[in-house]
């Protein structure tokens, strides 16, 4: 029995898979602040009581959280210092000196996570080839240690120039600090992101340090409380690349948790795609504060190393802090159930990107939220059932929603409440469809060739509208659509990724050296998997190198040939590079030397099997048809729309849209001109005509 737990900005989601009867069980609780473990154990208690599965009987728990992302966005990390080569303390603040918006003279650049007075230099220098030019000054380390203590520093990031070429000075600093300031956390750039370009490496290292104490404390608390409750199985943590790490791995490199929830959603998309025979899918995930779109092509999501956290101009490329870690490539849009609608200064209705989150929440939560949100609009339009939100556990107020929309939007715009509500619903769909379309196109693909899978708490409510805008032919609302990220945690493999940055020209490589570090990296990976009980024979090893034509500044990723490498591999590597280069840029360059820059070894455990038979949150009704209620559609206005109970839908049941399908964690809205059928495993398949 395995449990997935996903903490989002608004809700904490739970998915339990019982491998004895192949059943899935779901639960959802409000995320609790400031201590999210309260929400977790509320949920665990609910599962124990409702389904009678005590946590001590479970064999595995996989966890993901927005904790790290939120700490960066809200600047709620630890008091952090930063140590670098003397004379370069300001590199972290200067960045790349380039503006992200050329016409906005009022732009602001992201503030560094470590302020200038807490950035310190140490006298040392290593050259680009890794030779020590100036040995590290032991005396200045002593001064550093006392300054750190005096300032009550909780964590320190260390990034020295050229440390990717020689790690010894950073390691020495690490040893010194752990001995003399043992209570302090430290992150070394040569361990976090050993790649060339000092600003980007510094940024990732400082961020890791910044979020480490809170993540560490949280994960420790979480694990202790779990063990106290009698759980003795494996605990794994979801990371941004769609893979799992251990609690220790997460405590060491918490920046890898930045996109854990969204990565879980993408991995669920991979799982359902495989299950349903859909190789190419657009995953659309909409929660309380943001929506995400991710492309799954030929059964795999794309992983990118270009990622930014904490953008100052939300969703504007270049306005955040760079973090070059492997992340599933997805686009994030400031649109969720909690997104606030307003009339802007030129009299137009706008939605988001700011959110009412869980406190005060949408107006209809009746928790003192006064701003109208997407959820309020969905309630007014009849898409949501005021008496069956979270299966009736939370009563929504239609009156409060109507009042907020009326005072803040309908009156100022001189339109009806319904028109204003429909306006919110349409604009938010339009924003999401645009962003998703651009994301697909940027990959050189055509959005019309993708079917869509919709999930997240608000996803099934909006998927139909977004699919229509994208001219999608088929929309799938999977089982557990309201808790899909947590479900994705249960079908993601445990893996380690090791990085080694070493620039060498392909024709002059010392293959002995290459084989030696690749072997070390692979063995480290095996050892890591063992901690989660995965044997070497079950591991899959994937070795890649990032390479380019000598003299270029950007690389493309090539899979290395298997086994021991030597001169005879050069032709094959060249062939693979040229093939990929031509695919991307439609040309290659004759007679130009190639060079290898960064080597990566991923050692991955098997992808967990999950043969879902059925799912349950209690006793299903005999008949799925629950009657009708007034629901507003753009084409028709209010009409009496049939409402179905998702749990009572039978495999192969068919009906036409419009329809509303209710389940505890979400509601599926099916628009006009469409037909619905339930597949063997109770996934909802909607064909748009």
């Amino acid at each position, binding site marked *: 029995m395995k449990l997935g737990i996903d903490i989002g900005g608004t809700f904490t989601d739970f998915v339990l898979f019982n491998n004895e009867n192949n059943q899935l069980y779901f639960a959802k609780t409000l995320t609790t602040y400031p201590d999210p473990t309260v929400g977790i154990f509320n949920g665990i208690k609910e599962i124990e009581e409702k389904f009678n599965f005590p946590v001590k009987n479970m064999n595995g728990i996989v966890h993901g959280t927005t904790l790290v992302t939120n700490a960066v966005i809200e600047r709620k990390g630890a008091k952090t210092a930063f140590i670098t080569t003397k*004379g*370069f*303390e*300001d*590199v972290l*603040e*200067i960045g*790349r*000196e*380039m*503006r*992200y*918006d*050329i*016409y*906005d*003279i*009022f*732009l*602001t*650049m992201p503030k560094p996570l470590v*302020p*200038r*007075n807490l950035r310190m230099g140490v006298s040392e*220098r290593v*050259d*680009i080839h890794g030779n020590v*030019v100036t040995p590290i000054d032991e005396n200045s380390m002593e001064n550093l240690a006392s300054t750190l203590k005096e300032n009550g520093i909780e964590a320190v990031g260390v990034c020295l*120039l*050229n440390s*990717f070429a020689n790690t010894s000075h950073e390691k020495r600093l690490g040893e010194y600090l752990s001995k003399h300031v043992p209570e302090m956390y430290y992150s070394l750039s040569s361990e976090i992101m050993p790649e*060339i*370009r*000092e*600003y*980007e490496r510094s940024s990732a290292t400082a961020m890791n340090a910044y979020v480490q104490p809170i993540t560490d404390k949280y994960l420790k608390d979480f694990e202790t409380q779990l063990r106290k409750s009698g759980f003795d199985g494996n605990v794994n943590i979801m990371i941004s690349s769609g893979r799992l790490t251990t609690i220790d791995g997460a405590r060491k490199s918490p920046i890898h948790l930045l996109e854990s929830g969204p990565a879980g959603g993408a991995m669920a998309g991979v799982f359902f795609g495989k299950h349903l025979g859909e190789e190419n899918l657009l995953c659309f995930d909409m929660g309380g504060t943001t929506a995400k779109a991710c492309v799954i092509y030929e059964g795999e999501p794309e992983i990118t190393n270009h990622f930014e956290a904490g953008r100052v101009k939300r969703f504007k*490329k*270049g306005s955040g802090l760079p973090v070059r870690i492997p992340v599933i490539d997805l686009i994030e849009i400031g649109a969720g159930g909690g997104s606030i609608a307003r009339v802007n200064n030129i009299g137009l209705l706008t939605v988001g990107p700011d959110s009412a989150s869980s406190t005060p929440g949408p107006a209809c939560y009746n928790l003192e939220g006064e701003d109208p949100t997407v959820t309020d609009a969905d309630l007014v339009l009849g898409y949501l059932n005021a008496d069956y939100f979270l299966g009736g556990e939370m009563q929504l107020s239609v009156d409060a929603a109507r009042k907020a929309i009326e005072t803040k939007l309908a009156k100022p715009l001189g339109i009806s409440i319904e028109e204003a509500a429909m306006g919110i619903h349409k604009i938010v769909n*339009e924003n999401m469809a*645009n962003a998703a*379309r*651009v994301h697909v*196109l*940027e990959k*050189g693909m*055509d959005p*019309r060739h993708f079917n869509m899978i919709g999930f997240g708490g608000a996803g099934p409510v909006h998927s139909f509208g977004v699919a229509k805008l994208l001219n999608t032919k088929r929309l799938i609302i999977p089982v557990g659509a309201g808790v899909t990220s947590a479900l994705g945690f249960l079908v993601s493999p445990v893996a380690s990724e090791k990085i080694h940055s070493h*620039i060498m020209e392909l024709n002059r490589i010392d293959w002995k050296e290459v084989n030696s570090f690749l072997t070390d990296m692979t063995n480290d990976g095996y050892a890591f998997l063992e901690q989660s009980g995965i044997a070497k024979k079950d591991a899959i090893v994937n070795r890649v190198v990032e390479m380019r*034509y000598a*003299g*270029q*500044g*950007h690389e493309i990723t090539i899979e290395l040939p298997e086994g021991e490498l030597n001169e005879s591999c050069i032709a094959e590597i060249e062939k693979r590079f040229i093939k990929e280069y031509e695919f*991307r*840029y*439609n*040309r290659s*360059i004759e007679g*130009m030397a190639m060079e290898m820059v960064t080597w990566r070894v991923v050692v991955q455990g098997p992808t967990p099997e999950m043969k879902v038979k059925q799912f349950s949150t209690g006793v299903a009704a005999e008949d799925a048809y629950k009657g009708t209620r007034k629901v507003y559609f753009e084409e028709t206005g209010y009409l009496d729309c049939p409402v179905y109970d998702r749990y009572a839908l039978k495999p192969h049941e068919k009906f036409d849209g419009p329809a509303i399908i209710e389940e505890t964690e979400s509601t599926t809205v099916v628009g006009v001109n469409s037909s619905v059928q339930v597949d063997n495993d109770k996934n909802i398949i909607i064909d748009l005509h």
Partner: protein
Amino acid sequence: MQVTETKFDPIALSILWSRLISIVDEAGTTLQRTSFSTVTRESNDFAVVLMDRKGRSIAQSSVSVPSFLGVLPILTKALLKDYFPLETWKEGDVVMTNDPWLCAGHKPDIGIVSPIFHEGSLIGFIGTIAHSPDMGGVLWGAGSRDLYEEGLMVPPTKLISEGKPNDTLFNILEHNVRAADQTIGDIRAQIAANDQGIRSLMKLMQENDLTDLQDLADAVINASEKAMREALLAAPDGSYQYSYDTDGDGLGNGCHFEITININGDEIHADYTGTSGAHPLSINAVLNYTFAYTAYPIKCTFSPDVPNNDGSFYPIKVTAPKGCLVNAQKPSPLGARNITGNMLHSVVFGALAKAVPEQVQADCGSACWCIVLNGEHKGKEFVEYFFLNGGYGARPNMDGEHVLSFPTNVANVPIEVLETDVAVRVTEKSLLQDSAGDGKFRGGLGQRFSFVNVGEKPLNISLLTEKTQTPAKGILEGKDGQMGSIQIIPEREFPPKGLDKLFPGEELILTLPGGAGYGNPSDRNKTAIAEDRILGYIS
């Protein structure tokens, strides 16, 4: 935004418009990723523009160099008018030129324009300009005495004719430039970028059943023009003057700028009468370039939110007496004309501060300083560019950012990349305390940057600096920023603009100017002062 008389409803138009922008951005990414010189791959000194068949710009790459964006449509219109009339373009053609008067004002900037065909008919153009690492002649910078020392000039020529490369031209280029691999490699990257843009545009047209770009071009151009005109209409009519001094050669022969800006209804006219004559140093700007760097701060002031295209420029007129510093004629040397172009925002904002003080910023510690190193590294000749920026000017409601590129938009070259390419060791890169101009809002800090030649041979160095003699000027009682400085150890004379050698063991120490302040310093918030002190921005 309301768009009149178009075939597109506002939602369809906004979707197509943002897709056009993503097409040129994608082409820009291809250029950056396939290029070889640091100037393109690390510093982003390039731009991509999509144009209709009249050469009017429709969409441009998002974070590019403003001058290139402004110049590309002017270049393409000139190609159509005087060199390659519409009917002479064939599918698979690529035209190249670096003629400064047609293109971006100095020879290293290479313009590459490709026609776009759809089902056999010419529907538009896509063009890129990128700063090539070398075009022959003396090493790039302010060191040339006339135009001919600045290397090869290629008049508009088909570099590729119906898919067939012009081997003669490639050959001539290869034999005239330093580190030819980089220059030729970057030109190929520009061609690749154009092709990428064309492929993506074809997809967009196919998906949307478009057979032509003209309606879409009209719609976006009209919308941008309308936004600009409305903003100008809201500004007070009048005539606004400003004068401004810059370093010139940095050795006592300075330059003087005079501007008169007339706002009249929905039109704006900037005139540079009274500005110095041509300078003997190669810092003279051609009118194309002057137009681009005058229109740019005007766009920032009046219509920053609406995407830029040809329409934004229609209400703007720029004039300057023939032969003066900002309307240079043959054979004035032009190599380092960016130093002059980078000053024009100061003059424009200075004048506009009298009309719309809440919409402008104080002077920046510009121009962007450029350092070019040339020599041999690991047996191969190299030309390595890197850029350093000063402090950003204060705004009416907030401080200036430290060390940020303006008005150009070029990134620095990472220290570790620089040390990979060249035998130098960087000894410091830091914010320069107390360098910002005080004010109700202060400017941003400049920086200190120093490096040593750790190789065995002297390096040829071309240095381009500014504001070592003249400061960034404060506005509305804001204080000036601190000036920059150049020092070499062991101590000796070093030209602020020009060519020299950096011998093994010599260290060059540069301090870059700070941005200027906005408003009276006595109105500055006390908490902000205390915070600046804690952070060591001020002493």
